[in-house]
């Protein structure tokens, strides 16, 4: 592992470096879902939109070709939204129905 890997950010939401990702993969976490759960990779506000492809490339380099990689789970919402906006929108719909 080179020193520069410790400076390269892969998951900017949760502050994980390339060195962190390679260390987790070397410990045996070999799917996107496992890496998320153990290391919080892709669990921040962007939900993996930045790091997913980078991590897939690392998994491939570690011996799991892309075609054999499990896709991982995409969960709503597509973009972060405040609880207040959802609550206000929901109340508006109710008053329109009434």
């Amino acid at each position, binding site marked *: 592992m080179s020193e520069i890997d410790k400076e390269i950010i892969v998951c900017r939401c949760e502050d994980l470096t390339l060195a962190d990702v390679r260390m987790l993969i070397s410990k045996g976490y070999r*799917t996107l879902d*496992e890496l998320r*759960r153990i290391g919080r990779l892709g669990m*921040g506000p962007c939900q993996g939109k930045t790091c997913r492809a980078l991590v897939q490339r690392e998994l491939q380099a570690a011996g799991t070709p892309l075609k054999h990689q499990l896709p991982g789970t995409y969960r709503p919402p597509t973009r972060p939204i405040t*609880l207040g906006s*959802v609550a206000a929108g*929901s109340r508006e719909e109710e008053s329109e129905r009434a």
Partner: protein
Amino acid sequence: MRNSAEVVIIGGGVNGVAIAYELAKRGCADVVVIERDYLGSGATGRCGAGVRQQWGTEMNLRMSIASVKKFETMNEDLAYAGDIEFKQGGYLLLAYTDAGWDQFKKNVSLQQSFGLAVRSCTPAEAKQIVPHLNTEGLLGATFNQTDGHCNPFHVTDAYAQAARRLGVEIYTHTEVVGIRREGSGRGGIVGVDTTKGSIATPVVVNAAGGWSKPVAGMVGLDIPTYSERHQILVTEPIAPMQGPMVMSFHHHLYCQQTPHGSFIMGLGDSSEQSGYSSRSTWQFVEEMAEKITWLLPPLKGVRIVRQWAGLYNMTPDRTPILGPVPAVPGYFMAVGFSGHGFMLAPMTGVLLAESILGQPATIPIEKMDLGRFARGEFFIEPSVV
């Protein structure tokens, strides 16, 4: 894959790996854990990550109090290189009806008799504990400081690593397709068939969580568990502002800020049908947002980043089924945790290992058996969201 083992555990959730570790620790290391997906992929990794001792039945109290003791020293006990992130910020339970408040008072005196430092609070006292709490309509609350949060992924990982070090084999992405019994399928357990081969074994543990019923069906047992979808969402992390889990049975909700800074919150939905769906819905997000921004108004400005769902494996009395089944020699169960399997897992591991090895029980579990439903001896837990 190994072709024989002393014990095969079906289910790589927190209970499966905790049982495996406790067996190995007691000298029975010839243990295999079979997991269909990856470790913690079912209810464990989908749960609300809460750890509570404020229960209404003696058994849940005994198990949860002893489990908290184990969480407190788990990083060291399991020699875990990571951190299970145990935060004892307390649980604040809210009462809105006379019936609810009466139940809380009964629970508190029972809990205190077990040595729990739980206390009843007026709405004003509750507001001191959670300053941003809206106390409108609140009759009273109970608070216990040693309840809290723990990271389910890391607890599962800690048990799995410790178990592997002692010799336990864990096969992920492997599904159990059948369980073989002696004679014409009526005798003791002789083996387990999986998608990756067969393993001869005299002992099988059903720790299959949401899928406990089909796994019981593999030995011809019809058990009264059923699965029910429950949904959760998590927000972006913000600076620490809420110590305890806030929980209201009246609103069927709970909400806690994790050590990471995010808020995890969930709702029970009484209209939910039993089944195996773990898809999330927009209706949940709307209802959750409405209720939580009323109860904890500053959360209006916090962003939701993710929502998901998981299965509660329910029993008729909302109390787990633990231990052997006399009709099927060699078959043990740790199922039906009814939404609190994670927080009880440390003791479930101990009690199942003791039961399987025929060792004296730390907490007697005979009454937690499957037979109690036929005998009509229920342990109805009043306090479940």
